[in-house]
């Protein structure tokens, strides 16, 4: 009854529809927090589509990296901003031509990519992971760490440089800030902070009974 391929197709269209609607929501919703959440939904349904295409590693990496970390920080920033929502609509007509040009260029590029892929179907062959009898993640790992090790390491290096550069650009040393040195805090001994004084519990009897009365009790 439920043909798996038909079910897969229905799922694909459902996920694709959610992706498109959510992507539209990103650029049309007035509330910027809602827009960010819409982007999260876009990523999530894109991951679902990738799962259907048996790219399980990419799909889960998309959720872990983008949904789980990047978008959380994004949301973090957007919540902190106090955006006047009416100002957001300004300049829509002014930037419309630029937007249309970008959209058309992207459309042409995507169509070209689809054309190239269909033409090279024979050249590219079947899914290499299934051909090798491995899971998608395993095959991707083996390809990245053997065949493409050098490009992979270079990419890692570039990303590290990017992180260091971003920190170096934004790090400002202000004068007058107080820092705590954890090493010093750990090295503290009880004798540095508290002085234990030994003394008798009661005054010696020879001591003059000065101020036995409470000075507050005046007539």
């Amino acid at each position, binding site marked *: 009854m439920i043909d798996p391929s038909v079910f897969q197709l229905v799922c694909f269209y459902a996920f694709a529809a959610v992706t498109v609607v959510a992507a539209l929501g990103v650029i049309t919703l007035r509330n910027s927090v809602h827009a960010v959440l819409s982007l999260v939904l876009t990523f999530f349904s894109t991951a679902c589509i990738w799962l259907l295409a048996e790219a399980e590693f990419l799909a*889960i990496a998309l*959720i872990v990296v983008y949904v*789980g970390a990047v978008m959380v920080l994004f*949301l973090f920033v957007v*919540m902190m901003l106090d955006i006047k929502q009416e100002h957001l609509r300004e300049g829509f007509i002014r930037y419309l031509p630029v937007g249309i040009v970008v959209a058309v260029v992207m459309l042409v590029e995507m169509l070209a990519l689809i054309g190239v892929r269909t033409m090279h179907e024979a050249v590219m062959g079947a899914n290499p992971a299934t051909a090798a009898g491995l899971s998608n*993640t395993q095959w991707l790992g083996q390809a990245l760490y053997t065949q493409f090790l050098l490009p992979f390491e270079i990419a890692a290096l570039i990303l590290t440089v990017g992180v260091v550069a971003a920190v170096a650009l934004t790090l400002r040393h202000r004068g007058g800030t107080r820092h705590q040195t954890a090493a010093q805090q750990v090295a503290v001994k009880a004798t540095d902070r508290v002085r234990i004084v030994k003394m008798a519990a009661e005054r010696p009897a020879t001591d003059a009974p000065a101020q036995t009365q409470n000075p507050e009790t005046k007539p």
Partner: protein
Amino acid sequence: MGEQILNQLVWPIIYILCIAVPVILAVAMFVYWERKVIGWMHVRMGPNKIGPLGLLQAFADVVKLLIKEVILPTSANKFLYYLAPLLALVPAMAAWAVIPFNDKMVLANVNAGVLYLLAMTSLGVYGIILAGWASNSRYALLGAMRSAAQVISYELAMGLCLVCVLVLAGSLNLTDIVHAQSGSKGIFEWFMWPLLPVFVIYFISGVAETNRAPFDVAEGESEIVAGFHVEYSGSAFAIFFLAEYANMILVSFLAAILFMGGWLSPFPSSVPFLGQGSFFWLFAKAFFFAFLFLWFRASFPRYRYDQIMRLGWKVFIPITIVWVLVAGCMKYFGWVSIGTGG
């Protein structure tokens, strides 16, 4: 045709209920156990009025919370305010799908199980952030901000800990990870020995990731009254509570599966009866870790916020990165026989 519907639809739903209902019941009993244990540690009785030994206290609390009114704060974002508890609960429950209870008992024996767990645990933070923002309250927003920064920081350390396990086990499948820890020497075949620092860091990160004491600055009842859920009442609050405790139990199970051999017995396989693997072993190990959560809460004062960040970024992440290299060397040069399954 009817049989096919049964196989594709009805049985999975029954299996899901077989996991979800015990998890919810476990949360109820865990709350009771927490109050009892902390009571004993404070030299108090703990709940002892409702039911024998106070066992029905958790259920009384649930009924109380369910019949209370859910109050919507002034000019709160209504949609997100009601959505946030669900966003916290859904990942907490969904993550249970890949947990193997013994050799055969697993709902979804997926190849990328560990990745799926990482994805699900990283989604839970949305519930907290949105709850904080949608409540339209200063305290809730402060709690949400603290929580977001903390969860993201400790997720990195946790992910690197998982990498160490993956390197030794050579698989992302949780059942295979447990099988890699099997062998004739029982307890000495577990990953906790070659990965001891990582094991400790993993559990501490788990405590921080679930926003539990001593890392509970997101709630910080003495500073920001209750953090992200200060405005929530009734059943919405109950859902946050459920998600938090389900996450704690999940972290306990994961620590048992990844580092302490899951359902495998601590005794050598030559010992009769006790040497056999069973899900009772898994429950015993998970119970031990769940107990640690309560022990921590009763023992330690709350960390200061900058100390939490320092611990995560400057202590845990460097140690785990070094240990990833060490684990790689262990595997490559064959320094340890653990993980080869022999």
